[in-house]
């Protein structure tokens, strides 16, 4: 009797959530799977045609390859910076809380601000960075025309390093201090302790950071959209930007749906891998 009433209450409380997730997640996802099977007119059925088209589309292939390069660059540099910051800020230093928080500000800042701010700072005509470099005798760079992708990687690392640091700080809290004591007694120096204890024991965190980093870089859209508009040429037209163009410039929703289903498949595989790793390291 009570159980039945509780079940009734539970589903009553869940009704808005059921409606929301059904109508704004599951119906759209199902719709997306179906739309991907239709041509650019939205009427003619092309089956898996959009998918085979994607694999043969040089622009999609290009966007996928530069997205991988972007992801690799962001992950390597971002992980190193985030880990370094976490190790330094895991010590008992004065002002530690303030430093930890300050480094998080870019992560909380709108991508509009970040994109526009860096576009101004890097501008060859009015930007301040080249003037500063020239002032110390270094040559100025045409950042966004000569090294567009590397520059986007740099801005991404700048804005995300604080978040990576937080994840590594959580990982560092989990390493028992005893290990370091023992290593110190055995005469291991700080670098030795870092490479023999910290780094191996942080392996699960590093893997976690890498996978969620990869998932978010695969979906990166706004930063290159604001900073370079995907250019010059299509040098920074990442996969999500290509998808956006196919949908809203070419108005080819069928093809764009197929591209988003491919994105879904990759993200699902990565998310499931992350769950498996999480389960294994918890046990």
């Amino acid at each position, binding site marked *: 009797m009570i159980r039945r009433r509780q079940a009734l209450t539970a589903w009553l409380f869940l009704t808005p*959530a*059921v409606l929301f997730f059904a109508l704004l997640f599951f119906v759209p996802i199902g719709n997306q799977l179906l739309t991907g099977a239709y041509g650019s007119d939205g009427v003619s059925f092309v089956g898996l045609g959009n998918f085979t088209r994607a694999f043969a589309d040089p622009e999609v292939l290009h966007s996928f390859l530069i997205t991988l390069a972007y992801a690799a660059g962001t992950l390597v540099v971002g992980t190193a910076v985030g880990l370094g910051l976490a190790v330094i800020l895991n*010590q008992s230093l004065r002002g530690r809380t303030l430093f930890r928080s300050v480094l998080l500000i870019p992560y909380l800042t709108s991508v*509009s601000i970040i994109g526009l701010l860096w576009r101004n700072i890097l501008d060859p005509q009015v930007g301040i960075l080249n003037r500063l470099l020239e002032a110390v005798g270094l040559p100025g760079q045409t950042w966004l025309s000569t090294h567009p992708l590397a520059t986007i990687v740099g801005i991404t690392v700048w804005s995300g390093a604080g978040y990576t640091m937080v994840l590594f700080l959580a990982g560092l809290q989990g390493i028992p201090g005893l290990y370091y004591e023992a290593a110190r007694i055995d005469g291991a120096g700080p670098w030795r302790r870092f490479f023999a204890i910290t780094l191996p024991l942080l392996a699960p965190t590093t893997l976690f950071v890498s996978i969620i980093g990869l998932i978010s870089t695969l979906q990166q859209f706004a930063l290159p959209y*604001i900073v370079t508009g995907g250019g010059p040429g299509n040098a920074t037209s990442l996969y999500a930007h290509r998808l956006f163009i196919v949908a809203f410039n070419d108005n080819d929703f069928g093809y764009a*749906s197929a591209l988003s289903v491919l994105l*879904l498949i990759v*993200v699902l595989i990565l998310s499931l891998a992350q769950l498996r790793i999480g389960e294994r390291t918890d046990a």
Partner: protein
Amino acid sequence: MRERLFPGDRVAAYVVLVLLGLVTVLPLLYMIVLALQSDGEVQSGDPVLWPADLQWGNFTRLFEAAPFGRFFVNSFVMAGAITVSHLVFDPLVGYVFAKLDFPGKRIAFVAVLSTLMVPFFVRMLPIYSIFASLGWIDSYQGLIVPFLMDAYGIFLMRQFIRPLPDELIEAARVDGAGEFRIYLRVILPQCKPALAVLGLFTFVFQWNEFLWPLIATSRTEMRTLPIGLTLFNQEYFTQWNLTAAGALILFVPTAIFFVITQKFLVEGIALSGLK
């Protein structure tokens, strides 16, 4: 126990921290300098570290050059409504998953959590099509409805409510309180700290949201601040001082959030796992 680097390395640690701290903060401080420069100064190409004459008028010129007041209101309505919705529904759903027992619970919970794996791009196109046919493009409901709840908030609230003692709920039931009354009077008051975290994070992240407002609006008067700012910059790209002034206005809630949460910001982010 925290690992210590060797003595003397403390100095090296501070040098690295101060350098990286400056790299983090200086661009944002430069934004303030930029916002107060005259048109001549921003276009000169000479570095201006302190404007000769602080141009406070840039802020009023900004509102004349583009409907920034309207952008601000739109952003506020969107982020505000989504935050209220999260504060109403996320704890309610979190409570159901934390404390009630019912057939279908596991499936429902897994279904909600599985939405975390879905890239926004996957549901964006169909929602856009549906909203277009409903006439919801360029409307507040169009901006708000896709984000009324999310699995992060629900999961955060469930984790917070789970350790609360069941005896509280049992006692209220014995006293004859209805289920909703129990939730409202017994559970919700315990959740204040979690609700504060949830509300602040939701507001700041929605305030900064870029992709959906870009797609869901096309009329100038329905643009939100992040979109209005980038469009304004494309139209008047030499007006970097006005763009920076607009960026500062957009930055205000983040700054307030930072000041309020500075002490528990790191724990808050680790706790909520917001991406």
